[in-house]
Each structure stands twice: as structure tokens, then as C-alpha cells.
């Protein structure tokens, strides 16, 4: 059985593991990125590569050490360097003496033939019929959607939890349940079970959490190890952290399509061109949240990320024009948890003060607070 590995990104590894295994390969599931992954990645990466590159490097080396023969990864287009990462990883890893094959899937619209040949290679390796393969893909997609659904639910419930950390515990329990469910029927059961577990967490519904939009680069947004668990931290401080970027949604709009049209239209007055990565999205989503009456926006960016630097340059003007506080967190291997924690706490305090001042001006009318609901747009 060929051994296949893939990048770690948020909680998606649970779905990708199933995909690889259902195709008949042995999945070398990448480790949760940790200090050792990062140390390993930093050692063999160019110093100025961004943190997602370094984390992937560390994860690949760990997986290759465990015997992985094929690496499946995604590519990218445009000014963002991620488009070159597949080849750069390959070059560096080959020079370290590893023997493997890397299959980089670029968005199909960029080069349909290339996409087809790579897919054909994988399907042939797996000795699957196209029909069986489509079924496998569909189930993995369902799982991915289930994971996103639960993550959104946990984010929405966390600000109401009575005991700090209880939602996070319940969510990790859900992840294990989802991991075990394989057939459609099992997944449907898992879905109900997870909803029940999360709903069982004791909550205080009288709270009126702040609503904060999270924008920025996708890997930093999705990988809690890199963003130092910004969503959990915010949730436990009593703020609902909404983000528009989830893997399933992003795949539909940006990988398979031409990008989220509405977000780009919103961004246009401030940034009217695609600057690569999520730069334009960060701008458009910030405006979206401001117009929806969010209390604030947090912008996460890997250190040295060009698209996000462009976005960061535009954000102060949006903050002034639309009267919405924005906090940018620049993340890399040097980022300390304490600094991020302090900034987030201070930011949440600032937002509470702002809301209170508004309520005073409104003759004591309480602003709505936010009911939980899906915050995807």
C-alpha cells in the first residue's frame, strides 16, 4: 500500500485522512503542528518564507520520516508566494535526501489539463474506477462540511459557556466522534451526536457577547497552532469570533470559482485589484463586517505576507471611514502567546467600552447582543 501524506490545516486532516484511506492508500496523517514541527520546519526553510511554509516543511519531514511516499498538496496563483511552495518544498526535501513524489493541485480553472493529469495519476495509483473515486470524494467532502459545521457551532456557543473551556472540551470530543464515523449513516449519527454534546454544555443565555470579524490569510485563520487559538481566546473573553473563511466555503468560491464576487465588489473602492492570496478578501470582509454592525475586526497575517501587507495598509482608512476598530496580528515563529493574549484582551475591553459609550448615548437602550446563528456570509 502506498503511503500518502498531506498538509495539516485546522481540523481538515480528519476528512483528508478518510479520503486517502478510502482511496486505498495508507494515510500518514500529519502531526498537529507543535514546537518540534516548527523547529524542524524553521531549520530547513528559507528564513523569509512565511510561517505556513515552515509549518508544512516540518510536517512533511515528519511524515517522510514515518515513511510517506506521496505528498498531496494544493498550489496557488498570483502574487502570493504559495504558488511556488510546492516546488520549493520539493527541491529542499529532495536535497535532504528524501525519495518521494509530490502532487500539487492548482485550482482547476488555472490549468484544467494539468489538474486532470494529476487527478488521473492519483486515481490510477489507487486502482479505483472514476465512479468509485467520485463517491470517495463526496464522502470526504461531506465530512469536511460536517467539521466546519461543528467548528462554527462551537465558535457560536463558546461566549455563552458558564465554565471556561467546557465548549472546547466538548468540541474536541466531537472531533473524535467525527473521526470514527465513515459511512453516510454513521456520519449522520455523528452529526446528531455532536450537536447534542455541544448543546449540553451549560450556557448563560443572558450574556450579550461582542461580535468580532476575523479576516486574513487562510492558513493563519484555520490553524489554531499558528494563530495561538485566537477564536478560543476571543470566545472565552466573551466575543463571538466570526469568520467568512472556512475550507468548504473557500473551496467553492475561490478554488473552484473566480472568488467571492460580493466580497470583491465591497473591497473595490479601497482595493480594486487582486493582490494575491487573501489580500482583497481581507479588505472586502472587513467592510462587510463593518456594514453588518460588528463591534470590531481582527486581521491575522503571516509575517512578510505581501497580500496581507497590502490589506494592512488599507485597513486604517476603512477603520476611520466606517468607525470600526481593527487589530492586526502578525504571526510567525517569533510571535509570543503572551503578547497576542494581551492585545486581544485589551481589544475586547476597548470594544466593550465603545459599546457602552454607544448605549449611554442611546439613552440606555441596550444594543442587541448577538444571537447565535451561522455567521458565514
Amino acid at each position, binding site marked *: 500500500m502506498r503511503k500518502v501524506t498531506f498538509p495539516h490545516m485546522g481540523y481538515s486532516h480528519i476528512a483528508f485522512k478518510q479520503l486517502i484511506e478510502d482511496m486505498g492508500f495508507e494515510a500518514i496523517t500529519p*502531526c*498537529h503542528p*507543535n*514546537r*518540534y514541527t516548527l523547529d524542524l520546519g524553521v531549520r530547513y526553510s528559507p528564513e523569509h518564507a512565511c510561517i505556513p511554509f515552515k509549518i508544512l516543511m516540518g510536517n512533511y519531514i515528519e511524515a517522510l520520516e514515518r515513511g510517506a511516499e506521496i505528498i498531496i498538496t494544493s498550489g496557488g496563483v498570483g502574487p502570493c508566494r504559495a504558488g511556488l511552495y510546492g516546488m520549493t518544498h520539493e527541491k529542499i526535501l529532495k536535497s535532504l535526501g528524501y525519495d518521494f513524489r509530490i502532487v500539487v493541485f492548482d485550482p482547476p480553472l488555472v490549468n484544467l489539463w494539468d489538474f486532470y493529469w494529476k487527478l488521473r495519476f492519483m486515481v490510477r495509483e489507487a486502482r479505483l474506477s472514476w465512479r468509485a473515486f467520485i463517491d470517495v470524494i463526496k464522502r470526504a467532502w461531506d465530512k469536511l462540511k460536517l467539521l466546519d459545521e461543528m467548528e462554527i457551532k462551537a465558535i457560536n456557543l463558546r461566549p455563552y459557556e458558564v465554565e*471556561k*473551556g*467546557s465548549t*472546547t*472540551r466538548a468540541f*474536541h470530543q466531537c472531533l473524535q466522534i467525527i473521526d470514527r464515523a465513515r459511512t453516510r449513516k454513521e456520519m449522520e449519527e455523528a452529526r446528531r451526536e455532536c450537536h447534542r454534546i455541544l448543546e449540553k454544555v451549560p450556557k448563560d443565555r443572558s450574556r450579550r457577547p461582542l461580535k468580532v470579524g476575523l479576516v486574513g490569510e487562510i492558513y493563519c485563520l484555520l490553524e*489554531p*497552532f499558528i494563530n495561538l*487559538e485566537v477564536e478560543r481566546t476571543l470566545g472565552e473573553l466573551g466575543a463571538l469570533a466570526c469568520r467568512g473563511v472556512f475550507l468548504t466555503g473557500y473551496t467553492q468560491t475561490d478554488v473552484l470559482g473566480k472568488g467571492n464576487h460580493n466580497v470583491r465588489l465591497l473591497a473595490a473602492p479601497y482595493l480594486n485589484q487582486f493582490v494575491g492570496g487573501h489580500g482583497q478578501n481581507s479588505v472586502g470582509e472587513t467592510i462587510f463586517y463593518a456594514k453588518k454592525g460588528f463591534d470590531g475586526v481582527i486581521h491575522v497575517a503571516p509575517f512578510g505576507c505581501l497580500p496581507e501587507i497590502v490589506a494592512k495598509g488599507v485597513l*486604517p482608512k476603512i477603520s476611520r471611514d466606517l468607525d470600526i*476598530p481593527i487589530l492586526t496580528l502578525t504571526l510567525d515563529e*517569533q510571535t*509570543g502567546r*503572551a*503578547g497576542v*493574549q*494581551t*492585545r486581544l*484582551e*485589551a*481589544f475586547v*475591553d*476597548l470594544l466593550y*467600552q*465603545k459599546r457602552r*459609550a454607544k448605549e449611554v448615548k442611546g439613552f440606555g437602550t441596550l444594543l442587541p447582543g448577538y444571537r447565535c446563528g451561522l455567521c458565514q456570509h
Partner: protein
Amino acid sequence: MEPCYLGIDVGSVSTNLVIIDQKGEVLRSLYLRTRGQPIEAVKEGLKKLEEDWPAGFSIQGVGTTGSGRYLAGAIVGADVVKNEITAHAVAARLEVPEVQTILEIGGQDSKIIILRQGVVVDFAMNTVCAAGTGSFLDQQAARLGIPIENFGSLALKSQQPVRIAGRCTVFAESDMIHKQQMGHKIEDIIAGLCEALVRNYLNNVAKGKEILPPIVFQGGVAANAGMKAAFEKALNQEIIVPRHFPVMGALGAAWLAREYMQQNGNSTKFKGFRVAAEHFETYSFVCEGCSNLCEIVNIKGGDGKLVARWGGRCGKWEIL
């Protein structure tokens, strides 16, 4: 017994304790060196406070702040644990109610806080670069053999400050040595350093912020008259250094404790001065439950009971 409130600010370089009365008047304030041992510093501070206790007062609430706020909070039993930005803003507002800009430079970080109508509307914090913080000034004073207390007054004597590269401590130091070997006067070099650090602060930490008066300058570095003068020169505005500038964080924490206790009306969680004599043990281990490999830190009290534990990501270690 009159009620009073204790504020503790555990910073990287200094640990400060403040006691205020009901009206926010400072009854006692202490400025101690942390010396890398925050628990010992807090215990020492408590001991000193107990020895010199203002008669007729009893502690009704405790607030902690600073980078060691969770640790200090767990040890003494804090009612409020607040980040240093909020604490500093609260304290500045107590001293100068109309304040619109706060410049704060501490031992290891520097921050700017913008307030409008008494509400924090923006802030920035620099924790990566040490240029312009107290530690660097300390180090340069030691290198030049000048007691840090005289650093500022010496800078004020300068007629012709030299231009020093202040972008980074390493460059600043080599540039200072270069200027000294060229034969510039020591006070000119020191005044130049102050100006460079102010320039660095305004270009990095305060970049793009609207600095409106009244401007309050606080934190340990505010003791340095040279820095204050350099800020006044660069901003062309009056700079106010509040009375309790080195302990503003602790003052803010005490005030927040007071507000919290008045709103919630519970009895304080303060464990009392016995904490000063108690022995705390900290130890950490790596949880191998999954490949996250979280580093879990435990703090044990004198009776062997766990006081606090943190560091896990999945939440399973948070149940004591």
C-alpha cells in the same frame, strides 16, 4: 475598618504594588525588581506592605496586571485580572481625567493608548523590539558608568545632541560607540540617544496615530527627564508625567478591583498576607495525549494543593 484595594503589576523588569483608598488616593506604593522571579517579587512586596501597613484599613479587593498577571492572580487570590493596556488607561484617567494620549514605556515593552472622551479607542504595543525600552537605557547607562538616576538630568545639560541611529539596539549601541570615539561629549550622546529612542517610538509604536493633548507619559522610563524633553521637542506639546508614573499599572489594577467589588459586592478572594510566607512550587510537563504536545504548567501551594494550571489547548487540563 476603612476599605482599601490592592493592585499588583508584575512586569518583566519591575513588580509594583499599590494600595488605594475608596477615593482612589494612593496610600502605599512599592516599586520592586522582578529579577526573573515573579513569585518571589510578589511575596516580598506583600511582606513589605504588611510591615508598613496603613492603620485602620483592610483589603476589600485585589487586581493584578502585567505580563505576570495570571500567575500573581493565582497566588494572591485576585478578584480582577486585567491586561496592562486597560490598567494603564484607567490609571491615567484617574490622574488626568481629560487625557487623550498615553505614552507608556516600561522595562521590556512600550505602548501607546489613544483615548477619546475617556474611552480607549486605539492602542498599539511593541513587544518585539527592545529599542527604546527601559532595559536598553539601563544597559547603556551601565556601559557608560552613569547611574540610571542621573541619566536624564545629564541629557538635559546637552546643547548639541548628536544624531544616533535608533532603529535597533544593536545599531544604536555601535553608533553610540562610534560617536563617543569621535570625541563627542557624553551628555550630547545621551541626549541624542533619548531623541533617537523617541523617534523610534513615534515611527513604530505610534505610527499613524493621532497624538492629541493632554499627553501623559508613564512607565518606568518616564523618570528620565531626557526622554520627557525629547518627547516634548518631537511632538511640540506639553508632556504630563503623573505623580505615580512608575506604578500606573498597579494603580489601574487597584482601581479596577475597586470598581469590580462595588459592582458585584462579593467578598474578596484575597488570601491574606500569609501568602508571603507560603512556598509555591511551579513545574511543567509536556502532555503527550496528542501530537499537540502542549506544555502544561502547574503551580502548587504550600499545602501541596494545586493553585493553578494552564497551557493546554484541548481544555482537559483546565479542570483542577
